[in-house]
C-alpha cells in the first residue's frame, strides 16, 4: 500500500467528510435548539437531491446554480414540518418525537417512490470527469466543489449564529427557552426558523452530492445514520463539532474501506460511534456552540 494510495484515501475521506459535516450541521442545529432528533433529515437531503435533479432535467439548470431553488424550497419544507408536525408534540416524550420524524421519513421516501419511481437517476454535468492531479493523487472537481460548498454554507451558518441577532436569539432559545421568552424573543418563531435552516442545510448537501451520487428515494438512509454518528461525535448542538466530526467520520469510512471489504467499510465509523455514545456522549465539542 503506497504512500500515494493512503494519501488519496485520506483526501477522498476528507472531501466526503465535508458533506457529512454539512448534513450534520443541519441536524445538530435542530437538536441543539429544539432537542428534536430528526430522523427525517436524510429524507430532506433526498428532497434536495431530487429538486436539483428536476431543475437539471427539466429546466437544464446547472446543479450548483440550483441551490438558489433548493434552499428556499427546503427551508419552507422545514418550517412547515416544524410548525405543523413537531410543534404540537414539542412537550411529548423524546421518543415520540423520534418516532414522528421516523414516520415522516417513511412517508417522504415512499411518496417519492410513488411519484418518481425508485429508478436511480443521474445528474450529468459537462465537467463531471474533470480531475486535478497532484502527482498521482487525483481530486475530482465535483467532490472538491461539493466540499467547498459545504464549507461555505457551514461558515455562513456559523457566522449567522455567532454574529447576528438572529443567531443570538437562536442560541438563547436553545440554552434557556424560558429566559429567552422573558427577554422578548419569539421562541416559537425561532424554532421553526431554525428547523428551516437545518432543512436547508440538508437540502444544500443534497445539491452538493447530486452531480456524483445517483439520486434515488432511499439515498437519505445512508446519510442520516452517518449524520447521527457525526452529530454525536461532534457534540449535539455544536456546529464546529458537526463539521469536524464530519471530516473525522469521512476519513474513518475511507480508511475503513482500505481494511474492510465492501459493506464493512463503515465498520470503523460505527465502532467509533458506539464508543463515543458510551464514553463521551457529549461528543468532542459537546454542549457549547
Amino acid at each position, binding site marked *: 500500500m503506497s504512500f500515494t494510495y493512503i494519501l488519496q484515501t485520506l483526501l477522498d475521506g476528507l472531501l*466526503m467528510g465535508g458533506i457529512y459535516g454539512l448534513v450534520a450541521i443541519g441536524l445538530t442545529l435542530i437538536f441543539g435548539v429544539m432537542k428534536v432528533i430528526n430522523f427525517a433529515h436524510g429524507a430532506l437531503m433526498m428532497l434536495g437531491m431530487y429538486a436539483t435533479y428536476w431543475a437539471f432535467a427539466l429546466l437544464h439548470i446547472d446543479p450548483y446554480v440550483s441551490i438558489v431553488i433548493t434552499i428556499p424550497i427546503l427551508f419552507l419544507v422545514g418550517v412547515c414540518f416544524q410548525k405543523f408536525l413537531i410543534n404540537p408534540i414539542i412537550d411529548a416524550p423524546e421518543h415520540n418525537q423520534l418516532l414522528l420524524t421516523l414516520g415522516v421519513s417513511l412517508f417522504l421516501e415512499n411518496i417519492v417512490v410513488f411519484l418518481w419511481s425508485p429508478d436511480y437517476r443521474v445528474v450529468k454535468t459537462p465537467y463531471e470527469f474533470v480531475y486535478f492531479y497532484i502527482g498521482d493523487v487525483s481530486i475530482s472537481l465535483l467532490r472538491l466543489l461539493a466540499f467547498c460548498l459545504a464549507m461555505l454554507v457551514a461558515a455562513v451558518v456559523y457566522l449567522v449564529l455567532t454574529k447576528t441577532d438572529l443567531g443570538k436569539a437562536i442560541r438563547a432559545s436553545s440554552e434557556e427557552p424560558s429566559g429567552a421568552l422573558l427577554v422578548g424573543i419569539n421562541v416559537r418563531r425561532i424554532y421553526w426558523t431554525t428547523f428551516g435552516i437545518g432543512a436547508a442545510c440538508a437540502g444544500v448537501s443534497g445539491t452538493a452530492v447530486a452531480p456524483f451520487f445517483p439520486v434515488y428515494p432511499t439515498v437519505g438512509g445512508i446519510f442520516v445514520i452517518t449524520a447521527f454518528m457525526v452529530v454525536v461525535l461532534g457534540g449535539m448542538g455544536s456546529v464546529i463539532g458537526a463539521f469536524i466530526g464530519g471530516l473525522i467520520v469521512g476519513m474513518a469510512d475511507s480508511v475503513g474501506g482500505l481494511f474492510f471489504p465492501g459493506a464493512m467499510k463503515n465498520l470503523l465509523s460505527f465502532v467509533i460511534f458506539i464508543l463515543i455514545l458510551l464514553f463521551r456522549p457529549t461528543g468532542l465539542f459537546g454542549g457549547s456552540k
Partner: protein
Amino acid sequence: MANTKKKRGNRGISRRDFIKGTAAVGVAAAVGSIGFPNVLRGAAPPEIQIGNILPLSGPLAYLGNQLKNGAVMAVNEINKAGGIRSLGGAKLKLLDADSEGKADLSISGVERLDRAGAVAIMGCLQSAVTIVATQVAEKYRVPFVVSVAVADKITERGFKYTFRLQPRAAQMAPQTVKFISDIARQAGEKVKTIAYIHDNTAFGGSLSGLVVETAPKYGMEVVARVPYSPRSADVTTEVRKIKAAGADIVMASGYFSDGVRVFRAMKGLRVRPKAFVGCGNGAYSDQNFVKELGDMTEYVMDGNYQANPNSPLAQKMFDHYQALYGQKIPPSAVFAYEPVYVIADALERAKSTDREVLRNALARTNLKKHVLPQGPIVFDATGQNKNAQIALTQVLGGKIRVVWPEQYAEAKLVFPMPS
C-alpha cells in the same frame, strides 16, 4: 360398409331412436369435453398461463422490464402464429409477478402463480431471487424455466423442476477466460494479470470465484478481486483498489446501474488496462450503456449470453423488438424471449397442460430452431442447457457487436484497446 342402419318404419327415425341418439351424443359430448377439452368446448380454447417473476419495480426495474418485453414479444409471436397447435391452438398468457428485486417476495410470487394455475414459471434475473423462487417451485412441483440467473447453485440442488436456458457461471466464467486467452494469443499480446471488480451478490460472487479458479489454466492470475455492494452509491474506494492493481485486464460483473456507475468511476480514475472485459455484465452488452456514457465506452468487451447475430431467426427477433420498443434487443431480453419458445415447444410435445407431463417434456427438449449461438437446446440431468455458449461482444463505433468466437462474429475485434 356394413348396413348399420336400423330398419326404419315409414315414420323415419323413431322417437326412441331419437332420444337414444340425442342421449348418445350428449354422453359423447360430456365424455368428450373431459377427454378432448378443446374440441368440444367450442369457442376459444382455454389460455395457458405462464408465470414470470421479475423485478418490475425497484433498482433493477430497468432490466426487469426489458426481460418482460422480451417475454411479451415471444408470447405474442407464438399466439399470432396459432398458439399451441397440439392443444387446439391454445393461446399463451403471461402472468407477471413483481419481485421488486427481493427474494422473499418471490416466495409469495410463486405461491400466487401456483394458485392461479400457471403451468410453468420463468424468472427471475437475480441469482439470489431465483435460488429462492426455484426452491418454492420445487416444493409445489411447478416447472421453472430460469430465463436469466447465472449462479451455479440454481441447478446444483438435485431439483427436478428447475431448468435453465442461459449459460451458468461454470460455463460463463471459464469461457470468458478462455476467450481472453484466445484473443490475446491472436493479437500476440501478453496477458498475465486480471483485476476483477464485482457485485457482492451470488451473481458477481460466483462468476469472480470461477474466474479466479480458471485463470491459472491459461497462464493468467487474478491479482485483485474487489467486491462492492450494488446498493452503495459511492464505489470510489473499490475502484481505487482496481487501479492500484495495475492489471493487464480489468474484468467486471454487475447489473446495469451499478455496472454503469463502476465504469464511470474507473474511467474517471484513469484505470487503463489492455481491455475492459465484462463477465455477464448487465451494462456492457446493453446499448443504453453506450447511450448514457458515450465515447468512453468504446472498445469495452463483455463475455455474456447473446443472441446469434448470424441466425436469420435471430434477425427476425431483432427487427421485431426494434419495431416494438425502438431499440436493439438487449441480451437479457433475448433470454426472456427464448424460454417462452422452449416452453411452447415442450407444450407441443406434451400435448397437455399437466405440470408433470410438461416437466417431462421439458426434460426431453431437443430444440434446434432457436436464436442462440449454440447447438441444439438440450437440458442435462440437472436441468442446465448443456450446450450453452457465451459470446464476446465489443463496443465498436458506438455499436455493440459480437466479435468472438469467429463463427458467430459480426465484426472484427480490437485488442488491445488503443490508448
